[in-house]
């Protein structure tokens, strides 16, 4: 049984007590515990169920590599599934539930899968559930989906907040073990800006647990002193509870800081995502122990030897009273010695190697621990916890020589460097035969833009396995990184360590070596996903030989631990099955993040209304307070209509149209793009961008212009005003402002870089109001200040002046067919100007109107709208806009494209007006059908609707559309099927429905 030892526990505050619950059961732990250590202290061996077979699962590890200990935690807005209990610090009131079982952890119906496991080998679902066809969707899959998944889905809006930090450093060091600390010492002394991050709450990593001696001090003391020394350096920043998450191109790295997970009552963000630009990155991420593959290695109570030691030393917790140690290396002897020292029983150390006589081995022997060489475990006995082991010869086939009762097994298959961060961005690995692991190949690091390496591996992460080697390697790595980052200071002498001499480990990928199928089908490689040795062997036999195929076929390494424990064992098993050397099999790709990070942290502060930038016009608040029905347009919001009292949105729109046509309307047009194009070559530049001639425009005049892409398609339109000889102001659509600005810059920077032109986006510098309707001039004259008469300011003129005391620029342009002035004032004056217009306009029947009214009025006039009449496939010629395409210019963007075969094809659909025969409104997006079907059996079409509205002015449905030979077919009636099976008929007419002579606007 697992219990709390009498000995201290180096990370615990034994004086404090914390209450927590697990599956509703009340338990106690201490400050400094992880949830895992606290559960063990309460003899909670069973912590979860596996994914596929629902096998009972206990803890196997003590850190980020733990595959089994995952729980649902918290409640409501703070609920979170799949919390790894080995990296969850205990806090008062913590409430956790185990996952993936029904009805309970102890009794799980899903465990029947384990009984059926022989029918469910790797890839069984590819071979089953094929017939009868409908059953997959309706029966099999729903069943599989129900059984799959781990934690529960959260249901509420996240109650926590998150933030992003930015850091620019010379050297980022990931990992705060002795390697990271030594590297930081070197880099810090050299004068580099250093950021050192450590994923746990503690500095020093494994070394203090393993009894390292450094510079004559014990591990804890050295770590403490070194951290103090680093903290006193101005150029070094230390952050614990911060995990190096990923390494990306160009020295970009992410770190994930967990600020309040351990103290949920504390204010402030829960997680912080550090976005780091580092000149050099040192990966001092340590190494992870590998399990051994013996039958029953997944039974609760079987744990990595290093983890057993961690729980004993750090948390004063014993996994069991009698622990059998099984190993292929010297390091696991430390566990036996530690347990023995703590007064626990270690009946035997099973060492698969034929000989072993290192100093640790000797020490164990001297303590009276039995050491059995050349032996292994044939199988572990027990179901929900270990009750004993059967011992066999490692070299044999698994015949039992002896059975030993025990309640825990500590296993060690050797150590693998954590190479994830090294590999994320292309660092290559080499196979180290002596240690049987992949480690970074220093000669093939990830490369930066300069073609030089920017990641340096250090310490155990680089394959250095003893304290002495780690310190030398890491100090050098830190110094090298600092130097590469440009730091020139002296690093001085590095720390040195003492290490007992260890003998070589021996690779053991199968225990025993000749294990039968029966044993192999009980040897777990991937604990969470239930992948066994026999599964990998089956995959290889069936031809899934590439390591990626094997991974995907068996799901090896695809669980939430991403194969931290299983990958190397799986590869070795595959290599064995293929009779190939391990390095020839290779590894799967290491992808960020190192361990899972919260989506909340990725999102950062930008959430809710501000998850994207939000642009507001100066009049925004007025709109909001006056019934605006908002519609998103780009990053703006525009009022679709201003709803009054009990009217519907549709009624509001109709009212706005009628009022603007009869009295006076105001439109907040501030969102329209405004680009100033300036310089001696401005005219020449605009001649290239617009299809029209802009260079001939006179100062004081405006011209409506069209812009096309290189492919000839119409992409934006707007009014261009010439301010003076060198200066133009180009209006774009609301959605087009940023896009067209970028478009202009792209051409200026890449093609016409020698032209003397500057473009400035002044969209948000001005508020702009369209004053529209028969009373438009009256209200401006009432406000007074400048002459806006037809004589002084004729159609398509603009002028600077003041109105009602506001400095402004007035454009006499119209998108509605009404008398209309668009007036720009400095943004800071926008709201005041708007208010002044409303006040002065009251006697003239002023009403603001929204975007839908704007759309209807322009459609009544047959004006095209970018995004309605155009969709990226339409050229100006389709829209009857030939008049806006200069014939005099040699070139403009899109000209050559518009000469291509398909662009000049007379069967291109052309713009017309459409009038329903029954007065109804054609549905948006309807197509006009033609005769018959095409070669692919699709109904032939001869046109489509591009804009369709109920016109309050005309009291009927009107539409614009593109129709085959449309302009030549005036008066013809064509048919538009609706999706409900009925159809509507419409007559082809002139697209200008209202005031074709333009009498209303030219007054």
């Amino acid at each position, binding site marked *: 049984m697992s219990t709390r030892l009498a000995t201290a526990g180096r990370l615990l505050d034994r004086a404090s007590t914390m209450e927590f619950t697990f599956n509703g059961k009340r338990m106690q732990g201490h400050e400094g515990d992880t949830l895992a250590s606290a559960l063990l202290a309460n003899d909670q061996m069973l912590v979860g169920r596996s994914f596929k077979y629902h096998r009972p699962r206990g803890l196997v590890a003590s850190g980020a590599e733990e595959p089994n200990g995952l729980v649902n935690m918290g409640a409501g807005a703070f609920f979170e599934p799949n919390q790894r209990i080995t990296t969850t610090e205990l806090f008062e009131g913590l409430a956790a539930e185990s996952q993936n079982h029904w009805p309970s952890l102890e009794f799980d119906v899903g465990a029947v899968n384990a009984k059926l496991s022989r029918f469910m080998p790797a890839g069984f679902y590819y071979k089953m559930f094929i017939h009868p066809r409908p059953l997959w969707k309706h029966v099999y899959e729903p069943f599989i989906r129900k059984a799959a998944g781990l934690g529960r889905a959260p249901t509420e809006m996240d109650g926590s907040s998150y933030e992003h930090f930015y850091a620019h450093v010379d050297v980022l060091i990931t990992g705060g073990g002795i390697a990271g600390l030594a590297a930081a010492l070197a880099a810090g002394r050299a004068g580099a800006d250093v950021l050192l991050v450590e994923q746990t709450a503690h500095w020093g990593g494994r070394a203090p647990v393993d009894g390292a001696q450094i510079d004559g001090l014990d591990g804890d003391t050295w770590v403490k002193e070194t951290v103090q020394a680093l903290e006193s350096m101005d150029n070094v920043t230390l952050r614990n509870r911060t995990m190096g998450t990923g390494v990306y191109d160009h020295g970009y790295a992410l770190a994930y800081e967990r600020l309040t997970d351990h103290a949920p009552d504390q204010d402030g963000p829960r997680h912080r995502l550090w976005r780091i630009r580092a000149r050099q990155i040192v990966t001092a991420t340590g190494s992870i122990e590998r399990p051994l593959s013996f039958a029953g290695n997944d039974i609760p109570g079987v744990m990595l030897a290093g983890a057993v030691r961690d729980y004993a030393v750090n948390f004063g917790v014993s996994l069991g009273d009698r622990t059998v140690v099984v190993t292929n290396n010297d390091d696991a002897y430390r566990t036996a010695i530690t347990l023995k020292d703590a007064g626990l029983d270690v009946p035997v150390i099973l060492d698969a190697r034929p000989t072993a006589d290192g100093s640790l081995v000797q020490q164990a022997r001297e303590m009276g621990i039995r050491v059995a060489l050349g032996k292994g475990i044939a199988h572990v006995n027990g179901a929900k916890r270990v009750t004993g082991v059967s011992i066999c010869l490692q070299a044999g086939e698994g015949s039992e020589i002896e059975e030993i009762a025990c309640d825990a097994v500590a296993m060690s298959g050797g150590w693998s460097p954590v190479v994830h961060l090294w590999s994320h961005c292309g660092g290559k690995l080499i196979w180290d035969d002596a240690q049987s692991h992949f480690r970074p190949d220093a000669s093939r690091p990830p490369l930066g833009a300069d073609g030089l390496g920017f990641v340096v591996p250090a310490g155990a992460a680089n394959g250095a396995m003893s304290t002495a080697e780690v310190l030398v390697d890491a100090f050098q790595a830190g110094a090298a990184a600092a130097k590469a980052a440009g730091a020139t200071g002296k690093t001085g002498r590095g720390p040195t360590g003492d290490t007992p001499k260890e003998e070589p480990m021996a690779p053991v990928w199968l225990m025993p070596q000749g294990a039968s199928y029966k044993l192999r089908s009980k040897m777990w490689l991937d604990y969470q996903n239930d992948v066994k040795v026999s599964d990998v062997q089956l995959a290889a036999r069936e031809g899934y030989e590439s390591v990626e195929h094997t991974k995907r076929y068996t799901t090896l390494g695809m669980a939430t631990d991403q194969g931290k424990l299983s990958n190397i064992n799986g590869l070795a098993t595959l290599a064995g099955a293929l009779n190939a050397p391990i390095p020839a099999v290779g590894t799967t790709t290491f992808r960020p993040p190192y361990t899972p990070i919260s989506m909340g942290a*990725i999102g950062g502060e930008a959430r809710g209304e501000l998850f*994207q930038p939000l642009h507001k016009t100066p009049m925004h608040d007025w709109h909001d307070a006056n019934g605006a029905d908002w519609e998103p347009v780009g990053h703006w919001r525009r009022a679709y209509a201003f709803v009054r009292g009990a009217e519907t949105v549709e009624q509001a729109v109709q009212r706005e149209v009628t009022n603007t046509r009869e009295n006076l309307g105001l439109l907040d047009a501030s969102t329209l793009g405004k680009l100033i194009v300036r310089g001696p070559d401005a005219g020449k530049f605009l001649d290239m961008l617009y299809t029209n001639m802009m260079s001939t425009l006179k100062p004081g005049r405006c011209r409506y212009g069209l812009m096309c892409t290189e492919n000839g398609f119409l992409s934006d339109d707007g009014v261009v005003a010439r301010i003076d000889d060198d200066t133009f102001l180009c209006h774009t659509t609301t959605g087009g402002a940023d896009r067209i600005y970028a478009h202009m810059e792209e051409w200026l920077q890449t093609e016409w870089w020698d032209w003397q032109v500057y473009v400035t986006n002044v969209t948000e510098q001005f508020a702009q109001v369209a004053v529209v309707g028969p009373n438009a001039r009256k209200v401006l004259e009432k406000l007074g200040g400048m002459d806006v008469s037809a004589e002084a300011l004729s159609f398509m003129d603009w002028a600077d002046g003041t109105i009602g005391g506001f400095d402004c620029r007035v454009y006499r342009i119209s998108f509605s067919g009404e008398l209309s002035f668009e007036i720009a004032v400095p943004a800071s004056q926008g709201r005041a100007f708007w208010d002044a217009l409303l006040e002065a306009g009251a006697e003239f029947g002023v009403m603001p109107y929204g975007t839908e009214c704007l759309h209807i009025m322009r459609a009544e006039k047959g004006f095209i709208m970018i995004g309605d009449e155009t969709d990226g496939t339409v050229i100006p010629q389709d829209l009857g806009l030939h008049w806006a395409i200069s014939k005099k210019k040699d070139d403009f963007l899109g000209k050559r494209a518009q000469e291509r075969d398909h662009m000049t094809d007379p069967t291109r659909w052309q713009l017309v007006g459409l009038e329903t025969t029954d007065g109804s409104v054609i549905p948006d997006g309807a197509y006009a059908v033609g005769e018959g079907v095409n070669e692919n059996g699709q109904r032939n079409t001869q046109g489509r609707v591009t804009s369709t509205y109920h016109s309050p002015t005309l009291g009927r449905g009107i539409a614009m559309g593109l129709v085959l030979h449309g302009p030549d077919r005036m008066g013809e009636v064509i048919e538009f099927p609706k999706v409900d099976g009925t159809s509507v008929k419409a007559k082809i007419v002139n697209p200008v429905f209202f005031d074709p002579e333009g009498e209303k606007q030219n007054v």
Partner: protein
Amino acid sequence: MKRYSVFAIAREAMRQHAGWPRAWASPTPKAKYDVVIVGAGGHGLATAYYLGKNFGITNVAVIEKGWLGGGNTGRNTTIIRSNYLQDPSAAIYEKSRSLYETMSQDLNYNVMFSPRGVIMLAQTHHEVRGYQRTAHANALQGVKTEFISPARVKQLVPIMNIDGPRYPVLGGLWQARGGTARHDAVAWGYARACSDMGMDIIQQCEVTNVLTDGGKVTGVETSKGKILCDKLGGVVAGHSSALAEMAGFQLPMESVALQALVSEPIKPCMDVVVMANTVHGYMSQSDKGEMVIGGGTDGYNNYTQRGSFHHIEETVRALIETFPMISRLKMLRQWGGIVDVTGDRSPILTKTPVEGMFMNCGWGTGGFKAIPGSGWAMAELMANGHSPLTEEFSMNRFRAGKFIDESVAAGVAH
């Protein structure tokens, strides 16, 4: 071929699964084939499969530089739908979708096609009009889709926040018979069936040159030596420009990274696939329980199969808005694939200036769904020199300006 079935499993269970044969052979290349397909992604394998199945052409080699299915076929987010706007697209994608319906039975390999429905959200008035247009077009194209109300969206996807502060859901284009399939299984199922017809799938073999004689293709140079053929099909996705260059012509194509990510698995909470194009994100839940998430392409060309993190940020942010509950899930893994994007974002299935050489590429961000249809059509094109399904997708369309532009309806086409 040993047929897969529940009975076969039961039989094998009694003998330790020792009797399963290799799913596909691993042969050394012959000197010459009738047809060589370059690229053992889904499209290459499907092309080979239908050459055999529909035209009896089985003296075929599929040559793959890495491992079969290891390109984008093995890294995509597996959305299958056919609610495209333009006629040529709707035709080939719907053909493809309908072939998915029976693929498991056809291949005797469970590819787990799951028609659980796809919703494309309309979150601006512009999108509403766009999807209504698509719904009208689809009705005439024989593709079953429907524009549905926000209430219906909510009913189909209870975890969605349809009242988002910035982009409330105004409706959606719903294709009930769209869904997902298991990507690897599609490649493996085709490979097994091709191998069974006697075709050679040659992995770890890179094509390094295209051999021609008098403007006609004669074979390829590979890392495993010269392999001759009468007809050559290039089906290499992101590396198509490189292959075209070997044959001496150019393709209007760029290669950019497209990324995806998955959360840790959770119990089922979302059955349908949701795409939100205004905010650039889409999400589905896999049978394992992971939330599978994708967004837009990177803004620069590259071949590294990695992408820039800021895209991941944008996508996740967008989806937190749409599905607030994911904020407390964790990202388990992110990855990227290099997608082959053409000038109009539609694929190229075409004869080439080299006689006997054909290209099938440009599927970009959305070609998983097209695998069977593309294979079907490409096989027809290669065997007969003509296919109604590929007609409009010829590479000559760029010269004529006859684009097939789907961005009309959706920003990204997954």
